[in-house]
């Protein structure tokens, strides 16, 4: 028998280590069977899609009405010039961040538990940013003039004003959308090839071949692919941090009391990742249940993600405390009065919802029992989504309502138009996501194959063949999954 030189992991930085094993998966073929097998549309799925589209149409109708009548139909109450739309914008951008974190940053950090959940997360990112991108336009007084913000040679001989955080936003969001969409697509190519090779239906086969760019799993392709994938991940990592920092600049760069704080960039990024992981739970837990993918997305994966969630929650909590501390410590009456209004003013309850959902409830994740209880994780994720939406609300509205000029202090109340458009945004997001889960593999086939034991001629592992990391993060007799 020929001996095979034992490969070293250093030699191949492009292949992520897999430190969470999938004991239930035995062969490559099984992976294809299981994952591509989930793609058969069902009646339930059509129902869900229909509902999502309905919600979206409600939002679209509201928007049409708003464009025709003017922004006045929304609940704006000067000086609260930025209302629910901007809140929702930041909410969705934040959601996106967890996706990139899991798919890119954890990739660089070789966190193996990302492998089976990153595809969903990345898709979530793309759709969330697509949703978020609507809101700045939606909130414009004259949305049809949006192109004024885009630098292009024009006959007016006048250009955007690059000192404005909003222009930074345009660049940041568009870059983020492009890059994460590319990242998602490149990761999909080998899987598309796998689907192409299984597909019998001529039209769909044709479609998949076009999408898979004629991928054929050759060693050269894998080489360039891995390299490109690595660089995209390397770009996405600072990008994801910068995008939400830029979003936070929209507020930190203004002089509104309660916004004008150096704390904002890290504060927003942490919040974003926190909210995103919440949304990942909301999405992944039902999927693994309905699609019967528990063998892939094991409880250990969720456990690891839950730890990340707990950590970011603690960061966010600290940020809240810091904000209030700054308000108190500044000694400035202006700072203190906005703070007071935030906690005891018109929207006091929103502030308490925020603290409860984002700081108190996540503390339960200190218990491993609850970390490994998918039902609880799902419920908690719902609270986190709610809490993070209200966090943005609490940061923006009370501050605007309580600025320097007491004569212009006011109260703010959204109208049903605002709510309809918020609903529409969820409909829009869900529509894309539902289309995604039934048309593209929700788990990265190729990457899973990397961590399942390769087929070998001899039953037991041959010396020198790396059957991908037997060193476990969880001792074998961890308490089992409760669901």
């Amino acid at each position, binding site marked *: 028998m020929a001996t095979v030189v034992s490969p070293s992991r250093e030699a191949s930085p492009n292949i992520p280590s897999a430190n969470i094993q999938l004991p239930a998966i035995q062969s490559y073929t099984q992976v294809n069977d299981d994952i591509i097998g989930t793609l058969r549309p069902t009646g339930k799925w059509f129902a869900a899609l229909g509902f999502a589209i309905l919600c979206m149409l409600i939002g679209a109708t509201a928007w049409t009405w708003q464009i025709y009548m003017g922004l006045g139909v929304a609940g704006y109450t000067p000086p609260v010039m930025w209302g629910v739309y901007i809140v929702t914008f930041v909410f969705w951008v934040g959601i996106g961040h967890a996706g990139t974190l899991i798919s890119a940053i954890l990739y660089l950090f070789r966190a193996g538990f990302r492998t089976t959940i990153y595809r969903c997360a990345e898709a979530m990112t793309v759709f969330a940013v697509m949703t978020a991108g609507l809101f700045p336009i939606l909130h414009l007084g004259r949305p049809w003039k949006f192109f004024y913000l*885009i630098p292009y040679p024009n*006959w007016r001989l006048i250009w955007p004003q690059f000192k404005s955080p909003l222009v930074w936003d345009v660049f940041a969001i568009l870059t983020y959308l492009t890059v994460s969409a590319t990242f998602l697509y490149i990761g999909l190519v080998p899987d598309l090839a796998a689907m192409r090779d299984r597909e019998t239906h001529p039209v769909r086969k044709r479609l998949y071949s076009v999408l898979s760019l004629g991928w054929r799993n050759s060693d050269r392709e894998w080489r360039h692919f891995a390299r490109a994938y690595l660089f995209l991940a390397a770009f996405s990592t600072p990008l994801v941090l910068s995008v939400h920092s830029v979003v936070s600049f929209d507020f930190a760069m203004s002089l509104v009391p309660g916004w004008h704080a150096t704390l904002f960039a890290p504060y927003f990024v942490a919040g974003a990742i926190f909210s995103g992981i919440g949304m990942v739970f909301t999405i992944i837990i039902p999927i693994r249940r309905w699609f019967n993918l528990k063998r892939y997305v094991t409880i250990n994966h969720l456990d690891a993600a839950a730890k990340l969630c707990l950590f970011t929650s603690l960061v966010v909590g600290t940020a809240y405390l810091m904000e209030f501390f700054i308000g108190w410590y500044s000694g400035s009456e202006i700072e203190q009065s906005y703070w007071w209004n935030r906690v005891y003013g018109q929207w006091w309850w929103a502030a308490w919802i925020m603290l409860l959902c984002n700081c108190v409830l996540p503390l339960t994740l200190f218990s491993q029992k609850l970390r490994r209880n998918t039902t609880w994780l799902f419920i908690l994720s719902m609270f986190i989504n709610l809490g993070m939406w209200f966090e943005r609300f609490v940061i923006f509205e009370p501050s605007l309502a309580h600025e320097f000029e007491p004569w212009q202090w006011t109260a703010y109340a959204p109208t049903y138009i605002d709510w309809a458009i918020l609903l529409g945004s969820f409909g829009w997001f869900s529509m894309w996501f539902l289309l995604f889960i039934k048309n593209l593999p929700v788990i990265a086939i190729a990457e899973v194959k990397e961590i399942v034991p390769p087929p070998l001629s001899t039953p037991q592992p041959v010396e020198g063949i790396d059957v991908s990391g037997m060193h476990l993060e969880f001792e074998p007799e961890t308490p089992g999954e409760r669901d």
Partner: protein
Amino acid sequence: MTVRRKWAVIPGLFALGAVAVLLSAYQGATSRPDTIITEKGSWGYSAASSPQGRSPEQPIHFPHPTHVQTLGMNCLYCHYAANKSTDPGLPAVSTCMGCHLVIGPKRPAMNGRPAFESAEITKLQKYWNEKKPIPWVRIHHVPDYVNFPHMTHVNAGVTCQTCHGQVQKMTQVYQYASLNMGWCINCHVGNVNPAWKARYDCSVCHY
């Protein structure tokens, strides 16, 4: 071979996309050039400059050449306010009748041209007798948010033809310039005639 063909396609797509974006942007940004819009098809563009080349039918087919070139009348005779007001001013019907009381529809033979009956002068007299003003159709229109003071331009020595074209040669007046912002700025910064350069601060025209 097939691969090369593919290569041609990709940048082509990018280029197409870019062009589409620019075109759509121009569409919004400026008036639609080179479209002749007759009165019937036109719209009340309160916010966009009127389109270049537009040449609507007028209620009376007023021949500028006859009056300016043949008779040598000055623009300011009829557009009497152009040098003292933001509005150039339109001739009152009485101004027309000042001459056309005498010069009736019956035009005698003159240097080669046979005598004829002028339908236009008849129309004019009809308006006058009915004491109705003539509903001229506006051709040159800058948006409402643009303040164009005629007198400062005229007094600065900018000729009427600079913006309105050779009206004295137009049997039917059409819009000569594009009237879009770049066109204004280009002259204000002195590219057309250094002597004409003027303040190019936004608030000079937009308020």
